[in-house]
C-alpha cells in the first residue's frame, strides 16, 4: 500500500494518542506491581470508573472535561487507597491465588456497581474544543489530541519528579527495590503500598477522563480491553519498569495503528501479543525489566 507523508503522520498521531491512554494505564499498573508485587486485573475497571466520574461531573456542573481531571484523579486515588486497604492488604503474603481472585472479583463488582449507578447504556460526551483543529503541514489535527498528548507528558513528568526528587518518592522506590531493606531503614511499607495503589488508580482515572474527552463511547464493561493491552505493555516494557511502560505504550499504540492501516483492524489486538512474544523471546524480562527474583 502506498502511504503519503500526510497519511503516515496522521497514523503516527493516532498511534501517539492511543499510546497515551495505554501509558497512563500501564504506568499505574507497573507502579502497583513494582511496590506491592500484586497484579491488579481490575485496573481497566478503574479507567472505566474514571470515565464515569468525569461524565457525572460534566453532566452536573457543565465544567470543561479537562478541568474534571481535578475530580477524577483524587476520587480514583481515594478509591485505589480503599481497595488496597480493604481488599489487598488483608491477603498480602497469603499467596498469589488469593490476589488473583480478589482482583478478578473486583472486575465484576466494579462493573456491576457502575451498571447499578449509571446504567449499562453507552455514554458519550463532547469536548468543548471538538471543533478546533491545528494545521500541521497538510494535516489537520483536532486540538483535543494535542491536549491529551501534552497532559499525558505533564503527568509523567510530575510522576518522575515525585519519584526521583521527593522523600516520599524515594521511599516508594526503596520499597519497590527491596521491601525488607526498606522496612529495616524505617520506611512504613504498608503506607507505600497504599500510596502506590492510590497513584496507580489516579493514573487510571486520568486515562478515563482523557478517554471520555476524546469522544470515545463507554459503558461499565469497557475496561477489559484497555486493561489487557496495559498488561501486554507491562510485560513488553518489563515488570515494574515505568520507562518500560512508557516506551511499551508508545510502541504498541503506533504498532497497532500501522497494523490497522496496512493489514486491517482484525489484527489490531493480535499485534500486541506478537510484539510481546518477540520481546519475550529476545529478552525474557521485557525491554527494561530486571532479572526476576
Amino acid at each position, binding site marked *: 500500500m502506498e*502511504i*503519503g507523508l500526510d*497519511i503516515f503522520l*496522521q*497514523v503516527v498521531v*493516532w*498511534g501517539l*494518542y*492511543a499510546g497515551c491512554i495505554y501509558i497512563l494505564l500501564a504506568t499505574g499498573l507497573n507502579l502497583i506491581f513494582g511496590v506491592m508485587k500484586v497484579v491488579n486485573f481490575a485496573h481497566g475497571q478503574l479507567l472505566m470508573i474514571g470515565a464515569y466520574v468525569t461524565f457525572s461531573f460534566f453532566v452536573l456542573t457543565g465544567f470543561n472535561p479537562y478541568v474534571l481531571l481535578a475530580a477524577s484523579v483524587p476520587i480514583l486515588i481515594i478509591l485505589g487507597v480503599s481497595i488496597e486497604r480493604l481488599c489487598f492488604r*488483608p*491477603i498480602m503474603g*497469603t499467596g498469589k491465588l*488469593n490476589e488473583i*481472585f*480478589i482482583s*478478578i*472479583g473486583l472486575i*465484576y*463488582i466494579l462493573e*456491576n456497581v457502575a*451498571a447499578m449507578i449509571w446504567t*449499562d*447504556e*453507552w455514554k*458519550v460526551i*463532547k469536548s468543548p474544543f*471538538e*471543533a478546533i483543529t491545528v494545521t500541521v503541514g497538510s494535516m*489537520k489535527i*483536532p486540538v483535543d*489530541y494535542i491536549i491529551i498528548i501534552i497532559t499525558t507528558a505533564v503527568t509523567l513528568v510530575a510522576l518522575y519528579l515525585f519519584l526521583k526528587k521527593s522523600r516520599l518518592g524515594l521511599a516508594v522506590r526503596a520499597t519497590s527495590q527491596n521491601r525488607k531493606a526498606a522496612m529495616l531503614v524505617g520506611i512504613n511499607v504498608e503506607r507505600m503500598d497504599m500510596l502506590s495503589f492510590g497513584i496507580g488508580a489516579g493514573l487510571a482515572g486520568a486515562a478515563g477522563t482523557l478517554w471520555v474527552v476524546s*469522544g*470515545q*463511547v*463507554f*459503558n461499565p*464493561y*469497557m475496561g477489559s*480491553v484497555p486493561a489487557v493491552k496495559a498488561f501486554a505493555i507491562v510485560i513488553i516494557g518489563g515488570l515494574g519498569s515505568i520507562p518500560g511502560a512508557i516506551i511499551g505504550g508508545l510502541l504498541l499504540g503506533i504498532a497497532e*495503528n*500501522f497494523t*490497522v*492501516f496496512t493489514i*486491517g*483492524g*482484525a489484527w*489490531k*489486538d493480535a499485534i500486541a501479543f506478537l510484539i510481546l512474544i518477540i520481546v519475550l523471546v529476545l529478552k525474557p524480562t521485557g525491554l527494561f525489566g530486571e532479572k526476576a527474583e
Partner: protein
Amino acid sequence: MKLQYAFLLIAIVVIGAFLSGCTQQQASTASGQALKIGVVASMTGPSSTTGKDVWQSAELAADEINAKGGVYVKELGKSVPIVLVQGDDESTREGGQKAVSRMLTQDNVDMLVGGFSSAVVSAHQSMVAEHNVPYIITGASTPVITRRTDVNTSFMFHHAPTTDDSGSQTTLFIDEGIRPAINEKFGYSADRPLRLAVLYQDSPYGKGHLEAVKNTISNSSLNIKVVAEESFKMGESDFRTALTSIKSADPDVVYVAAFLNEQIPIETQAMRDVDLKKIFIAIEPNDDPDFYKGVGKYGEYSIIQSRFSPYTVPKGPTEAATKKFVTDFDKKYGGFPGMMGVATYEGVYIGAKAVENAGTLNKLAVRNAIADLQMPQMVEAMKGQTINFSRDFRESKFDLTMEQLIWDPAVNETRPKIVSPQNLKETGFVLPDWFVPAKA
C-alpha cells in the same frame, strides 16, 4: 486470619453469583400447565441494553396474551398461560450456551425466542438441535443461522432481516438514490461508477454485510466500485486509522456494518478527526434513540437502513399497530423497545399462534405449525403483509426502509426522514453542501 478467610469466602460467593448465568422464571401457574417460552437475551454484558429490550418486549407480548385468556391448546381442551423463562447469555458465546442448556434441560421450555448476535446464537444452536425445541430467532442477522449444514437447523426459524436482505436493499438504494444525486450535483456522466468503502465488524454480522454488498453489485451489475474494505474487532472504539485508510482510498460513500456503540464513534471520528466528508450508511440496529443522542450533529445527512424507528413511522397498514406497541412499551417500561425488541414481541405471538394452530405442545407439531404459519403482519411491515417463513431456509421477509438524518433544532438532534422505498418516502434524498465527491 478468620476474618480474612471469611472475606475471601464472601468474595468467591459474590463472584460465583455473578458468573452463574442464572435463569429467571415468571411465576408458574397453579395447575402447572403452561406454554413455557425461553427468552434468550443479553441481560448483562455489553449488549445488555438490547437484551433488556428483548426481555421486556417478550414480557409485554406474554402479558397481553395472558390477559386475553392465554393460548388455546386443543389437546388439553383449554387455554394455558404463557410463562417466560429468562436465559441471560451474558453477551457471550459461553454465557449463551450456559443459559440455553439450562432452559432446555432444567426448565424444560416448550420453545425458545430471542437470540442476539450471530456469534452468540451460532454457539448454542447445536444444543437446540439436540433437543429439537422450536427456536424463533429474532436478533441474529447472519443468514448462516438457518442455512448452516453442520447443525440440524430444521427447528429454527429466522424472524429478523438477514444481512443478505438488508445489505442488498441498502446497496440498491446507494445505486438508485445516491449515485444519481452525486452525478447530477457535480455534473458527472451517468456512467461514472460510485466509489464505495465498506467498514465492517469482523464478525458473521459484518462479514455478511460485506458479502451482501459485493454479491448485490455483482448479481445486479451495479455501477459501484468497492474501493476499500476495512474491518474492526467487535467492541472497538478507536476507528481513526481505519477511517484514515478509507480516506486515502477516496470513496463517495462509506457503508458501515457496526453496532450502535461502534457506529457513534465511527461517524464522530470520521467527521471530527479525519475530515471524511462523505455519506455514511448505518444498518438497522443503530436506529435507536441512543444513536441520535450520541452521534449528534455528526450524523446529519447520513443514511440508516431501518425497519422500526423511534422517530418515524411508515404510513400504511402497520402504522396504528406500531404506535400502539411503542406507547404500551413506553407506558410499562419507559423508553423505546428497539428493533430486536419488536421482533421478539412478534416472536412470542408467532409461537403462541403456532401452538394454537398445532393444538398441542408437542414440539414437532409446533415446529411444523411454525413452518406452515400464515399470520397477518403485526408491528413490522412484512413482504406480502404476512408473517410466514420461507420453505428453504425458514426466513421471514421484511419491508425495509432507508432513512436520512436531518437536523432538528427543536430537539437539538437529528431526526430520520424516510427517503426510500417510493411508496413510503417522506422526502427525497439530499446531498449536503459539505459533501466532497471522490476525485477519481
